[in-house]
């Protein structure tokens, strides 16, 4: 039993050393890994410098440069509500997905005509802009609808 415990604690210690070796610094307890530091250095020194080679003052300078970004990340996690986070992430993903899509002018024109007809039928008093002015936003709307439509088709929805 004693042997097992000793082996376990040794293994734990070795594990801890590994973790320590991977940590370049902590900012208010938030870890900056060696990997992260190296990534930043790669950009700053155009691939000439690594964390290991960097002198002490250089390390201090680098960590001080990286600290605000880490603190912002932490503050964002803490301060933003779940809804804000979701909206921001979904918005970004949607923008990215939409940029990969192309909607033809014909399709946009057809949608524009349909909208105009619907507005007329509803006796809407709102002024409908010219097609050229509305084209871009109509295309975005179509793209968004197509993306969401595809996702909804795949989704598994069970109503109880």
């Amino acid at each position, binding site marked *: 039993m004693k042997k097992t415990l000793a082996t376990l604690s040794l293994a734990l210690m070795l594990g801890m050393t590994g973790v320590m070796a991977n940590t*370049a610094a902590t900012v208010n307890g938030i870890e900056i890994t060696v990997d992260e530091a190296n990534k930043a250095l790669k950009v700053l020194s155009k691939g000439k410098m690594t964390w290991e080679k960097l002198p002490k003052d250089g390390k201090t300078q680098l960590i001080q440069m990286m600290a605000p970004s880490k*603190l912002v990340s932490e503050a964002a*996690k803490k301060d*933003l509500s779940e809804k804000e986070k979701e909206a921001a992430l979904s918005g970004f993903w949607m923008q990215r997905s939409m940029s990969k899509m192309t909607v033809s002018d014909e399709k946009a024109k057809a949608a524009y005509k349909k909208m105009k007809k619907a507005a007329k039928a509803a006796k809407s008093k709102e002024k409908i802009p010219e097609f050229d002015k509305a084209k871009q936003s109509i295309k975005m709307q179509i793209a968004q609808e197509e993306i969401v439509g595809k996702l909804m088709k795949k989704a598994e929805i069970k109503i109880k």
Partner: protein
Amino acid sequence: MKNMILAMGLSLLVIQTPLAADALKNSLTNILNDKNSVGMVNLDNLSINGKPKPTTHFKKRSPNTIISTVKGYKIRKKEADAFLNKVTKGKVKDYDRLPKKQRKIVIKELVKIHTLKNKKSRPSTAVIATVNGVNIIKKEADNFLKRMTSGKVKDFDKLDKKQRKLLIRDLARPIVLKSEVDMNLTTEERDGILRQVWLEKQKSSIKVTNDEMLALYEEKKSQSLAVNPNAVIPAYLTIGKQLKSEVIEKKITQKLMKDVKIEINFDDHSTEDSNKSTTVIR
């Protein structure tokens, strides 16, 4: 007595006949004398294809008459009349005037309304749907419904099947989108996006004065001139936006770095001390 009445009637006829004859005579004389007249009598208002309307006799029942009983639910005529009045915006008010086919539809609708009205609602924590394995509880649907209908409808369980399906589809969208985002965005991307949103939020609440911007301008100007005395310095007004943004960033960084505790793990083999040492900067 009888003779008297007869005499009175006769005298009235005698008086009226010349009056009517005079009117006709005058009208015809006018037509003949009027130069603009085409000499025709206007018959525009006369329907020549007029057929007598078929007279339908409705069996009018009292408002309290039970017009149908469905699974114990007794439907009275007044209910159907009220429903009709509401649906047709007052154009049709009497159930008995409807043909058989339409009566059936009205009864069906009334039964539907009655069933939904009397349906027992589930507790607000009940799971009403799952989307890609994520539960949607009744409270979420009720709140959404309340928002959508401006407070007119508040209970998901009072909706019919089609309406429920539509509502759940609306609620499912963000869930479906979230699972897609979770699968496709890297941790770094997420971090970057959230950082940007947080910074934007901070920026909108930070005020910058002209003096602060001017101080930064002067600082940057002297820095540039120190490096290159012949440097072309842009006019203060042309870089106002950039200066404001920089002042804001500076303020945010200062706020974040206040009382910050940084511990650096020096694992430096080139120095005299090969042991790990930790420096604390406050």
